[in-house]
């Protein structure tokens, strides 16, 4: 065989090896992730019954459910989202509409990115220092603030992105009609970016609803059903964590049911967020 022919054969062989590698690792990766979803479904569905939603966490050996943890998670996530939407949308609006190319804007943008991927357990330590230690008590409020701190960067980021995508003519048209700029922002830009803002909120919600680490030493846990956020509050992730590491089979079964609930919620919310985000392109 001539030299070029050998080289061609070698290149083709390398190509086949490369393609085979890509195919094999994709199959392996998808298989691993399917295995996780499969065990989640097979272990979780068994423990998922009406008791899970109507009874509070049991003592080992007795019947019970996750009602207190679900209620606690819903309350803390809801409060966290209210706080985070308020701060996040305003901060994102400032970055998109008022910051321009200022140095301060660049700093805030960079730090927001850092906060976006900061380890969530550190946020828990921070909130412990400012809201738990001074008041000598764990509380659902502290948990909600910790979750809000994790949701804010997501909302800031999406708010800035969707506002920057709005056409400049939209702003000019509003200003030309004599509207003050703040009115243009609130009544025109926010309105036309509505679906984008909603997507950001949903993604932030999906992120915080499964967070465990920041709740461990802020909201702590509570064995009983309670709607009082000034007391330690149970949450699904923390209950899952405690129950999964326990030695009792019925607790572990509840942990799997809870994990399935959380994963299903997160997946559903993420899918809705994607559908909402796609909507404006259709019209």
């Amino acid at each position, binding site marked *: 065989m001539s030299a070029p022919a050998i080289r061609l054969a070698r290149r083709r062989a390398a190509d086949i090896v490369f393609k085979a590698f890509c195919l094999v690792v994709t199959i392996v990766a998808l298989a691993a992730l399917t295995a996780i979803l499969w065990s989640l479904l097979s272990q979780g569905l068994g423990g998922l019954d009406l008791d899970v939603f109507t009874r509070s966490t049991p003592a080992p050996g007795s019947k019970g459910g996750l009602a207190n943890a679900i209620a606690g998670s819903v309350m803390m996530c809801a409060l966290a989202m209210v706080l985070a939407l308020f701060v996040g949308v305003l901060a994102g609006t400032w970055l998109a509409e008022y910051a321009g190319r200022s140095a301060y804007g660049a700093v805030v943008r960079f730090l927001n990115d850092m906060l976006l*991927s900061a380890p969530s357990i550190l946020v828990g330590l921070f909130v412990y220092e400012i809201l738990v230690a001074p008041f000598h008590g764990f509380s659902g409020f502290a948990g909600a603030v910790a979750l809000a701190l994790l949701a804010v960067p997501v909302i800031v980021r999406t708010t800035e992105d969707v506002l920057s995508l709005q056409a400049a003519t939209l702003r000019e048209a509003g200003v030309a009609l004599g509207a003050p700029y703040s009115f243009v922002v609130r009544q025109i830009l926010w309105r036309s970016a509505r679906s984008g803002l909603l997507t950001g909120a949903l993604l932030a919600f999906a992120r915080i609803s499964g*967070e465990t680490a920041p709740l461990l030493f802020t909201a702590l846990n509570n064995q009983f059903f309670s709607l009082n956020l000034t007391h330690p509050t149970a949450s699904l992730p923390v209950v899952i964590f405690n129950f*999964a590491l326990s030695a009792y089979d019925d607790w*572990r079964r509840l942990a799997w049911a809870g994990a399935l609930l959380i994963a299903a919620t997160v997946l559903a919310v993420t899918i809705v967020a994607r559908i909402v985000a796609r909507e404006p392109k259709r019209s």
Partner: protein
Amino acid sequence: MSEAILTPRARPARRTAPRGAALGKIFEGLCFSAATALLVALGGLLVSLLVGGWPAIRKFGFGFLTTATWNPVTDVYGAAGPIVGALTTAGVALVIALPIAGGVAFFLTELCPAPLRGPIGTAVELLAGIPSIVYGMWGLFVFAPLFSRFVQAPLMMAAKPGSLLEKLTAGVPNGSGILSASIILAIMILPFMAATLRELLLTVPAAVRESAYGLGATTAEVVMSVTLPYVRTGAIGAVMLGLGRALGETMAVTFIIGNAHGLPSSMFDSGSTIASTIANEFTEASTPMHTAALMALGLVLFVITFIVLGLARLMLRASAVKS
């Protein structure tokens, strides 16, 4: 009447401000304060860790980073064990996840049949959002028994006494340990890294790829010498974001690392990471010094991840500016 039309009225000295203009300043101020609140939050995070960890930093000094004694009974703390544990598990996780994430991203952008591209890409992105506690539980209940039976036990049997393999595989074959934690971490960061890499590769202009194919390059050559170099900076940034995630991850690790202090001596040895130590001990800290030591540990994690994430963001930004 006609006069009024012909001679223009004198212009008002000052244009009246539109209604609600005063509100504008307030609104802008509110937006500005919200943005500043972000700055305050991150600053507060750093300061609170510093203040909380100060007693431990003052007592143990630099030795806090280099000694591996972590003893709540005698109230002596050294963080080398958790620090080494965090760096090792994150590093090994990255080594495992990177080639796989790259392979998935290349497969999705270059090889995958068009009808499957969207669904698989979406599935990978959705999986990136699964809470890490799910990965941790799966690691503890499903992965660990299998790993113990099919990897740890056979490897320990096969290791010759006195060989390097024996040293590496020393420990209890119960499925947990440093290597198990690394593998679970790798599985957890895999969808995230694959999704980010895929997004980056999609930014390569079609003309660039097509001209490479037009010159007769094979798929492997197009990927390795054209598209990958095109997104190089961004790709390194994406990898470092994955590393940052692995370093600070709590839940996926705590379940399966074994939670032993001190320096791990083998792949199967129990260990701990910074995040897992804080998660396990913080609410049960017995003395003020114990709490302070955990806060100082948090500060170490903050500094490490801040550097990694900072570099990652700068690289991703540089790549975004280019494209």
